[in-house]
C-alpha cells in the first residue's frame, strides 16, 4: 500500500497532476503512516528528474516552476511529520527576491524553483523589493539564507544596502546573504561583503547546499561560490 502511494506521489509530481492532487496524495501518505522522510526522498528524487530534464533542454521553465510549486505544497504537508533527526531532509530556508527598482523575474524564478527542487524551503518575496522587506521576511520565515537577484546595474546598490542594514540592525550573523544576476560579478559580491555568489541557478543550488553543510556562521570570512 505504502509503495503504491509513493509511486502515485512520484507520478503526480512528474506528470500532469494538479497541486491539489499532489496535496491529496501527500495527505494519504501521512494518514497511512508512511515514514515522512521516505516520502520526502521519493518526492525529491522525482523533482530532481524534472530538474535534470530542464538542464538537458527537454523541459522548459514553466514545467520546472509548476513542479516546484507542487513540491512546495507536498513539503508543506510532509514537513511537520519529519522527526527532529530528519532535519537535513527538510533543507534550509531561503528568502528570495529581486531588489528595488528591478522588475525582472525570470532569473529569480529559475533560482527559486531550482532551490525548491533541491529541497529548500523558499519564500519568494517578488520583484522590486526594498531592502528592509527582505530582512522582515527573513525574520518572519526564520530564514537561513537571503538570496538577492538584480539584472540592472542601478539596482546593485540595493544588494549592498541589505547587508548594510543587517549590520546596522545587529542581524548580520543571523542570515547568509547570497547575490546573483546579470551584472552581479564575483568581485562585486566580494566588495559588498556577501557570503556567496552564484553565476546561474544550478550554481545557486550548489552554493546553498555548501552553505548549509558548512556549519559556519554569517558573515563568512571569504566569499563562497559553487
Amino acid at each position, binding site marked *: 500500500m505504502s509503495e503504491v502511494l509513493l509511486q502515485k506521489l512520484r507520478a503526480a509530481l512528474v506528470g500532469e497532476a494538479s497541486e491539489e492532487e499532489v496535496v491529496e496524495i501527500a495527505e494519504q501518505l501521512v494518514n497511512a503512516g508512511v515514514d515522512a522522510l521516505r516520502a520526502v526522498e521519493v518526492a525529491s528524487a522525482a523533482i530532481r528528474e524534472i530538474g535534470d530534464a530542464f538542464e538537458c533542454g527537454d523541459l*522548459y521553465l514553466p514545467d520546472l516552476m509548476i513542479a516546484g510549486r507542487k513540491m512546495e505544497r507536498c513539503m508543506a504537508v510532509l514537513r511537520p511529520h519529519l522527526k527532529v533527526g530528519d532535519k537535513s531532509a527538510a533543507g534550509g530556508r531561503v528568502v528570495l527576491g529581486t531588489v528595488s*527598482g*528591478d522588475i525582472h523575474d525570470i532569473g529569480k524564478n529559475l533560482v527559486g524553483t531550482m532551490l525548491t527542487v533541491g529541497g529548500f524551503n523558499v519564500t519568494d518575496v517578488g520583484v522590486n523589493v526594498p531592502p528592509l522587506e527582505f530582512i522582515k521576511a527573513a525574520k518572519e520565515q526564520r530564514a537561513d539564507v537571503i538570496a538577492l537577484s538584480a539584472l540592472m*546595474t542601478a539596482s546593485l546598490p540595493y544588494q549592498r544596502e541589505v547587508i548594510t542594514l543587517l549590520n546596522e540592525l545587529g542581524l548580520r550573523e543571523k542570515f547568509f546573504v547570497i547575490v546573483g544576476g546579470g551584472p552581479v560579478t564575483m568581485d562585486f559580491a566580494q566588495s559588498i561583503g556577501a557570503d556567496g555568489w552564484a553565476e546561474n541557478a544550478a550554481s545557486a543550488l550548489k552554493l546553498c547546499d555548501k552553505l548549509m553543510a558548512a556549519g559556519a556562521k554569517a558573515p563568512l570570512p571569504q566569499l563562497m561560490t559553487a
Partner: protein
Amino acid sequence: MGVDRQRLMTVLDRAHTGPVCETFDWDTRVIPQTIKKYLDRYGLQKTCDPANPINQDDGLADRFFQAGLDAAVEIGLLCLDTHRVIKFSREEILAGLDAAPAQFTLGEGKEQVTFKHRNLDDPTPPVWVSPLSIAVTEDVFLPLVEGIARVPEVDCIEGPSLETVYGHKVRAGSPLELLVGKYQAELNYEALKRAGREGMGLYAVGTSPTHYGVLGGYGVPGGYKPGRDIVLLLSPVEMKTSYELLHRLAHVYNCGDGLVYGGSWSMIGGYAGGPEGATLSCIACTLLLYTAYQAVNGASFPYDMKYMGNCGRKALWALGVVFQALSRNTHICANSVLNQTGSPATELLLWESAVGMMNLAVSGATSCTGTRSAGGKYTNFVTPLEIKFAGEVFKKCAGMSRAKANDIANKLLPRYEEQLGKAPKGQGFPECYDMKTLTPSDEWRKMYDYVKNEVIKAGMPLD
C-alpha cells in the same frame, strides 16, 4: 510624430478593466499553453533547423507571422501592477501596424538618419545604433561615446549606462535616477560635439532602469529632445507591461512630438518554450508593442538562456525567422538587439558579431542596437572597435542572399560556437584602448584585422 491620445487612453483603460490574471498563471499556463496551441495549429513544432541557421523558407516565416498574430489577439499584454490583461482585437492590431510608419527620422541636420522598412535581401543599408546600455564609470563615458560617435558606421547613440551621477551611485527608482536622465543627455551631446557629429539621434535613456530616468531626461531643458530623440520602452518577458512603462508612454504623449521604441525579448528555454516557441512569442509580442505603445521602431528578439546570448545556431535561426516574418508581412521599422557573450579584446566577440549581424542584415531588420560586449556583465567592457566591426558587417551584408549568408554562417560558426557560455573575460575600454587618442591597442587591432580577413575569405563582402 507623437503619441495619439485616444489610443493611449484605450491602453490605460484596459490596464484597469481587462481580465484578471496572476503572474504565475500567466507564466506557467497562459503563455506556454497558448504558444503551444498555435505552434501545433500552424505546424510549427520542430521546425528549427540548426544545420541551416539562416532561414530561407519564406512560407515558414509567413506561417509564424500568422500564428503570431493569432497568439497576440488571444494573449494580450499583462499589466504587472494591476494584474489585468490589455487585449486587442485582430482589427486593432492590424490598424496599429498600419499606423506605424514605414519610415521615420532621428537626429537633425547633416546627421539626421532615415530608418526605412527593409525587405529580405534588401540592399538598403540598415541603421546601426550603438552602444547598448552597458555600465561605465563617469570618467570613461565621454571618451568612450566620443570614440563610438567617431565610427562612421554608427548612425545613432543609445547607451552606455552610467554607474554614478556626479560621483554618486545611481539607485534605480530614486531621485538619483531622475538626475542621471538629464545628465546622460548632457554628456551624450558633449560627446557628439567632440566627435564632430552633433545632430546624431539619441535613444533615451540608457541609464534608466525605471521611468524616472526618462521623466528626468526626456523633453526637459537641456535633455533629450522629442522629435529628434526616441524613448525606450523595454517590456519584460513574456508579453508584459507595467505602470513603469506606461508612465514613459504618457510622458512621451505630454512631450508632444515624442517618439517611442517598443522592445522586448523571449527566452529560448523560458516561458515560451524552445526556439519555435520563442520565435512565435517574439512575433506576437512585437505586434502588441507596436499596437499598445504606438512604436515607430523596435521588436522582440530571442535570447538563448543556456548561454545568455543569441549568436548560437538555435537563436540565430529564431532571430532570422522573427525578422523575416515581420519584414514580409508588415511595413514596420523593426529593430533587433544582438547579444554577444564575448568581450572586447577577444576574437569571440567578433565572430559572434560577424554571423549575427549578417543574419539580421539579410533577414530584413531595419536597424540593430549593439554590441552587447561581454554580455553586458562587466563595467567599462565595450569599445569602438567591435562596434565598428559589427556596423561594417551589418551594412555591407545588405543585399546578400540568405543562401549565401547561411553558407558563410556555417563556415564561421565552428570558429566560435563551442565557446558560447564559456567566454574568456577579455579587457575593458581603459585596458585595450588609449583613452586620449581613442585608438585600440595593437593586440586588439590585430584581432580585428585577423577576424575581418577571415570573414572576407569566408565570402563576406567587407573589402
